[in-house]
């Protein structure tokens, strides 16, 4: 019963007076933290604590919380299950034990608690030191140290000569060469479509008459020129055109009459 009350003290310790029984697990940073607080409540050197007693304390604590219908985070319950297992293993006859031995598990838990405890104390001792800005202060209005920057200009002889070369290249009377624009001329398109359509008998899409793998400006130019070429060939009666609807694909083929004429011509 005494231990039970202690457990309650722990619950209430971090709470404001008056808020009785407002239990909260927010006060602990996980099960190990809770265990350490329980261990410290045994009021003996952490080295001397009884793990078995600690296990019982923890399990009672969890039972207490459940009775009060507190929501327990899963990791507290996992720890409870593990500790229950540890407790039964510790109480079992030696021969029935498995690896790792319960002693080993208990020792591990003990070492972990010691380490956490050591760091908790270390943190508190750090915080209690004479801290800058809280206990000791630096000068309120330091004059400041000035650094005057001076530009150190750098350039190489190559930079200099290349710059002069650029000036001269830019300003000397240059013979201008007009670079070839990426276009397909109407003549080229007429020749290409006329030649290709003659080699096919069935309907084929206009796009299939363009050179392969075109894109960008040249692609658009080729399409436009081929379209005009198609119209021109149709006007000459050399091709037939078909389109199912507005914006639908355009198909063309060699005009049937013209084909005949040409074939005749060849035969003639």
């Amino acid at each position, binding site marked *: 019963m005494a231990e039970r009350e202690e457990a309650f003290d722990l619950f209430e310790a971090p709470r404001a007076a008056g808020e009785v029984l407002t239990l909260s697990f927010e006060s602990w940073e996980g099960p190990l933290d809770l265990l350490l607080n329980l261990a410290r409540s045994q009021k003996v050197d952490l080295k001397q604590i009884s793990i078995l007693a600690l296990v019982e304390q923890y399990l009672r604590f969890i039972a207490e919380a459940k009775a009060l219908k507190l929501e327990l985070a899963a990791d507290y319950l996992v720890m409870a299950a593990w500790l229950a297992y540890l407790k039964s293993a510790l109480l079992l006859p030696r021969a029935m034990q498995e690896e790792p031995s319960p002693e080993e598990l208990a020792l591990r838990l003990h070492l972990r608690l*010691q380490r956490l405890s050591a760091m908790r104390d270390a943190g508190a001792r750090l915080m209690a030191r004479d801290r800058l800005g809280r206990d000791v202060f630096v000068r309120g209005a330091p004059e400041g140290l000035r650094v005057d920057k001076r530009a150190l200009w750098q350039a190489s002889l190559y930079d200099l000569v290349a710059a002069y070369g650029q000036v001269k290249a830019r300003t000397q009377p240059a013979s201008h060469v007009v670079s070839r624009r990426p276009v397909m001329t109407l003549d080229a398109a007429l020749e290409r479509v006329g030649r290709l359509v003659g080699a096919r008998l069935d309907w084929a899409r206009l796009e299939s008459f363009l050179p392969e793998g075109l894109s960008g400006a040249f692609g658009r130019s080729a399409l436009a020129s081929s379209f005009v070429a198609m119209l021109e060939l149709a006007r000459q009666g050399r091709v037939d055109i078909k389109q199912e609807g507005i914006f639908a694909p355009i198909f063309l083929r060699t005009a049937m009459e013209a084909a005949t004429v040409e074939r005749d011509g060849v035969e003639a």
Partner: protein
Amino acid sequence: MNGDSEPDDLARALEAALFAATEPMSVQQLRQYVGDRADITSALERLAGDYAGRGINLVERGGRWHFQTAADMAHMLRREKEEPRRLSRAGMETLAIIAYHEPVSRAEIEAIRGVQVAKGTIDVLMEAGWVRPAGRREVPGRPLIYATTPEFLTHFGLESRRDLPGLEDLRAAGLLDPVDLAMEGAMEGLFEREDDDSALENMGEEA
């Protein structure tokens, strides 16, 4: 001051530079102001001695020197100064673990604390300027590792990490070793005791 004589030019220059500086200064930095002299460190130590009993002290923190008010003046000066933001308990513990174990990965911090370290916790410590990423551990996953900064030493009044309170005792007690390592040593003692049935209750002893 001990006042046997007027301070020499070097001492005066160091005093002035450290007084005017807005940040703690290393000997290297001071050299750029007072000139390339071999005796800067000894002059600083003499100066620190001069100021030892005064309301202002000259202190070294992680190889950097600065003037600060004497600790016993805290009550008088604190009145007007705002208390720096308080660290949460998680923050305090995480800082202690980084300081006493550095360099240390987040997983190692979590192993000691038994809980996940919220991302914000390390961020707060970095924002305060006390903790910095210190490369990666060359193990699978190459986790980031953390260490303390010179500002950490400055803030907590430590000349070096060796001055961390209780560092030597903790090290001697093996409490800075990983649990696995400690287990190996402890298990030997445990097996010797295993014949004793009553041992169960006092698992911790001699561990």
